């Protein structure tokens, strides 16, 4: 190789946004955090029971139409009288991202599958003169029932799959920490959707699954470090060791959350109205997922205790396949 080829990239140093030797005493906050989290989870469940989720047509069945006014802005009061006069039960009409656009939601009609189509036809009849149709979603009772079921199965299956993986790769204590953190994330995100009465549809289930993946990703990185440190510092007391592990992975945790939040922010602000709710769920989920990996998953290990002697076991899989309570 020629001598002058050394200048291969400009040389400049990165910025350490977490200063070296940072040691935040996370474990001393654990009690506060536990209680805060429990309070949030209770609040989420209360919101869930009292307010309920604002299910979209995917799960509730019914009809949704997005319209754009052919000229000028959409006249919502006028639409309300037009569509409201059709006797289709509960009708919601709202502006959708742009003053020209409106979203009409009509509840599921009694009388089975064909009556949903009948409702759609009626609405189209009264609006088609002044509005262009941008999107239509009609979900009948059979499909909405199935989607509810598969949505629930998907979230539960994801949690189970993740628990199994962590249990295999680590110890059962780690799996419990992870499952608590995951349940925490899902519950609180759903609670937020209940409180804000944001539409909860299939895309939000996709967001929840991605949050699960993301949150456990964080949890695993911290857990990996805990396991490594357990081997390295055999005599360090557990709270100190956990604290050290969290601090060591802190800049990675924040960096990855940072880039993920940047792209999610871009999606939320510029990705269009259709996926705004999805982006919102993800934004919140990434924040809560990062929090739970630090303040829930790791501290749980202190409560449960964890096997200290990893010496002579290079094959972690073998070690974790025989979980032993200490």
């Amino acid at each position, binding site marked *: *190789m020629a001598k002058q080829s050394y200048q*291969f*990239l400009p040389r400049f*140093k*990165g910025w350490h946004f977490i200063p070296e030797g940072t040691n935040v005493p996370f474990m001393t906050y654990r009690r506060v955090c536990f209680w805060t989290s429990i309070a949030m989870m209770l609040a989420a469940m209360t919101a869930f029971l009292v307010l309920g989720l604002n299910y979209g047509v995917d799960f509730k069945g019914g009809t949704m139409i*997005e319209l*754009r006014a052919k000229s000028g802005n959409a006249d919502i009061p006028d639409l309300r009288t037009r569509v409201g006069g059709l006797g289709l039960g509960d009708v919601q009409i709202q502006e959708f991202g742009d003053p020209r656009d409106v979203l009409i939601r009509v509840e599921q009609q009694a009388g089975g*599958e064909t009556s949903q*189509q009948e409702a*759609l036809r009626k609405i189209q009849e009264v609006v088609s003169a002044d509005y*262009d149709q*941008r*999107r*239509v*979603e*009609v*979900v009948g009772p*059979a*499909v909405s029932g199935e*989607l509810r079921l*598969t949505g629930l*199965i*998907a979230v539960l299956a*994801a949690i189970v*799959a*993740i628990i199994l*993986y*962590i249990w295999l*790769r680590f110890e059962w204590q780690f799996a419990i920490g992870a499952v608590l953190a995951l349940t925490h994330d899902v519950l609180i995100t759903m609670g937020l959707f209940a409180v804000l009465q944001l539409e909860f549809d*299939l*895309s939000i*289930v*996709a967001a929840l*699954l*991605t949050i699960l*993946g*993301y949150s456990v*990703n964080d949890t*695993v*990185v911290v857990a*990996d*470090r805990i396991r490594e440190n357990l081997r390295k510092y055999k005599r360090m007391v557990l709270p100190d060791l956990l604290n050290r592990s969290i601090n060591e*992975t802190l*800049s*990675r945790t924040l*960096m*990855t959350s*940072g*880039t*993920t939040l*940047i*792209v*999610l922010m*871009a999606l939320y*602000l*510029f*990705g*269009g109205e*259709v996926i705004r709710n999805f982006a919102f769920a*993800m934004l919140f989920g990434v924040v809560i997922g990062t929090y739970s990996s630090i303040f829930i998953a790791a501290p749980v290990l202190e409560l449960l205790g964890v096997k200290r002697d990893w010496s002579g076991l290079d094959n972690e899989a073998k070690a974790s396949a025989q979980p032993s309570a200490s």
Partner: protein
Amino acid sequence: MLHFSGFKTISIVLVCLAAFVLALPNFFTRATVDSWPSFLPKGQVSLGLDLRGGAHLLLAMDTQELKADLLGTLRQDTRAALRRARIGVRAIGLRNETVRVRLLKQEDSEKALTELRRLAQPVTSDLLGSGENNITVAQTADGLITLQFTEAAIRQRIVDALGGAIETVRRRVDPTGNVDATITRNGADRILVQVPGVDDTADIKRRIGKAARLSFHAVHPDEQATGGVVPPGYRAYPSAETAGFNYLLRAVPVVKGDDLVEAQPSFDQRTNEPIISFRFNQSGARKFGRWTSENVGRPFAIVLDGEVLSAPVVREPIITGSGQISGGFTTQTATDLAINLKSGALPATLTVIEERTVGPTLGADSISSGTMAFMLGAVGTIIFTIIVYGTFGIIAVLGLFVNAMLLIAAMTFLGSTLTLPGIAGLVLTIGMAVDANVLIYERIREELRSGKSAVQAIDNGFSRAMVTIVDSQTTTLAAAIIMFWLGSGPIRGFAVTLSIGIFTSVFTAVTVVRLLVALWLRAERERSRTVDVPI
């Protein structure tokens, strides 16, 4: 970890080049790509209906109707078989999906059972070649003979009917063959219809909403005489025009719509009313010709989907096999019916149970806002990464670029469909793909902090981070696979981009980024003895 053989280096570079070439067509318009020389790849990622606009309809077939049909035929066959064998019958009834026969004379039982068992045929199914019969014939203690379809027979009938319905739907949705419609089986009794570029589904729904089963029946000669009782072999059919009026027709039709070969909408020359002219095939023409020759002066009824359209009187024998149907049509209904008759009848009624339609303007808006979000998200990530990791940040960004290319190339190559959630997955992948690099770089920083030399720190950084990368990405992959497994349409698009993104980001981190770091290190070492890692 930092040594790359020439072969390895070349392979990595080739993979990157291949990805770049495969991804390239996606950045140009279709027309530009078509004008390229033929040796260049031209495949583009196909856009989902939510991006290019189009209709998605999920149809459910009425299996109850299918069963009722099946039982109706069995009842007729039973009656015919017993008549052929000259066995006296007191009553043939239908209850609980069972045909029930009460004989006049109990001593005919054995003979009747033998005759009726002959009706049974083996079920021909690909899955169960068990030679199971389609009908079970039994006799209860009090002499009642029952005929039932087996589970397998009903299942087979539904499978066959769905296959036929798919073909019929295809001909109706796309009579000219110009629309790029996808019509597929979905589960046991459902059909998924996807039509790009259509945002008004009214036409499609009108065409598939009717089974269009046409038949020609003899009308009972003296309707008034029956006094409201339906004589055996006859059935009451409601009139399509006059509500509440029923015709008494022979249950077995003279000719069925299956025998039609041609159906055209046209106008009656005298009244100028829309009508449908049709032509029978040979056997249909023969049957209809024979019947009309024998029944001049008597009425016959044209029945469509269980309703009598009209009941004209036979003026002269119709032996040419062509004729007209009138019945208060509008131009539109006549056109629709002609298409439906020509496409063949649907074996059972189809109901729309899910509809999702996106207009072309919304699709275009989604593409542009998705692109915007992708660009801004990428720029933000690039700036942040370079600020935090300096020179190594630039390497990570190069990796990110290769990653995006690989992802797009993989999607093009696998022929997966890009949906709006898919774009979200793509954007998210950009943000999360940095994670592998972050894990490696943070590790390098730690190793340097603990006093390792540059080479050792970088080497350890890559190898130690690997375990964590695999562990953490496996869990995300698990979530994505579950999404794909259980999700429908758009959600699957998200799951696909997310999972491909996981593979490409791990691949780039351990090959491309590692190679670039190794090259950088080699260049630095040539320059000076001690290498200061700017991370």
